[in-house]
C-alpha cells in the first residue's frame, strides 16, 4: 500500500480546454527515453506518430531543430505530419516523442492552442 502512495515513477500531467467549441484534452507522460503525448478531441488515441530529431552537423543545422515524423498507426495524411512537426518543433524536446493525435479541427489556431496546452504540461 505504501508503494502506491508515493509519486509515480512516470509523471503524467493532463489538461482539458474548450478550443473553438471542441472539448480538447492533452495528456503528457514523461518517460525517461520518450515523451508520450496524447492530444485528443475525440477522447481516443487516433493517429499515433513517432517524432525523432534529425541528426545534422552544427554548421548545416544552424540551431534550427529538424524532426522526422512517422505514422505508426492510423491515417498517414500530410496534415498529420504537419501538425506533429509544428507541435514538436515548438516543444523542442530532448527525447523522441510518441504522439497520439485525434483532432477534429486542424486549423493553425487550434494546433497552436494545443501546442500551448502541451507546453503547460511539460
Amino acid at each position, binding site marked *: 500500500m505504501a508503494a502506491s502512495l508515493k509519486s509515480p515513477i512516470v509523471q503524467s500531467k493532463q489538461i482539458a480546454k474548450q478550443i473553438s467549441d471542441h*472539448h480538447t484534452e492533452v*495528456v503528457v*507522460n514523461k*518517460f525517461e527515453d520518450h515523451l508520450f503525448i*496524447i492530444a485528443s478531441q475525440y477522447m*481516443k488515441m487516433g493517429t499515433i506518430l513517432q517524432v525523432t530529431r534529425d541528426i545534422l552537423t552544427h554548421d548545416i543545422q544552424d540551431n534550427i531543430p529538424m524532426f522526422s515524423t512517422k505514422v505508426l*498507426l492510423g491515417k498517414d495524411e500530410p496534415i498529420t505530419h504537419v501538425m506533429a512537426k509544428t507541435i514538436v518543433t515548438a516543444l523542442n524536446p530532448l527525447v523522441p516523442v510518441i504522439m497520439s493525435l485525434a483532432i477534429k479541427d486542424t486549423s493553425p489556431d487550434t494546433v497552436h492552442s494545443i501546442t500551448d496546452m502541451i507546453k503547460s504540461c511539460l
Partner: protein
Amino acid sequence: MDMTPSICITDFSENILDKSIHFKIIRLEQSFFVWVGSKPMLSNMAVAMPATYGQIPAVSTLFGAKLEQISESLAQKLAKKYKCQVFVSCSVPFDANLSVLIEKRLAQELNQIFPSS
C-alpha cells in the same frame, strides 16, 4: 477556460517477486492504455483490437522490440476481455512467474475501473 478532464489516469506500484513494478493506466473512450515497467522507459508499444470475425483479437507492435512479445500477448488478452482497443507497453523482462503476477495485479485494478466486465 479550463474544463474537467474526462481521460482518467491511474498510477500504482507493487512489489512483485522482490521487484518494484510500476503501472499506469490511461482510460480513454472505448479504449485504454496500459504501461508496466520497473524503469521509467517506454521501450515498446503494442495495440490490439477485438476481431469482427473470430475469437482472437488482431494485434500489432507499433514500435520497439517485439522480442518475447509480452506487450502483444497482454494487449491481446485485455482486448478480448474488455472488448475494446487496448494499447500496452510492457518493459519488464520476460519471466513466466512474474508475468502471471503482473497480469493478476493488473486485472485486479482493471476490474475496479471497469466493474461491468
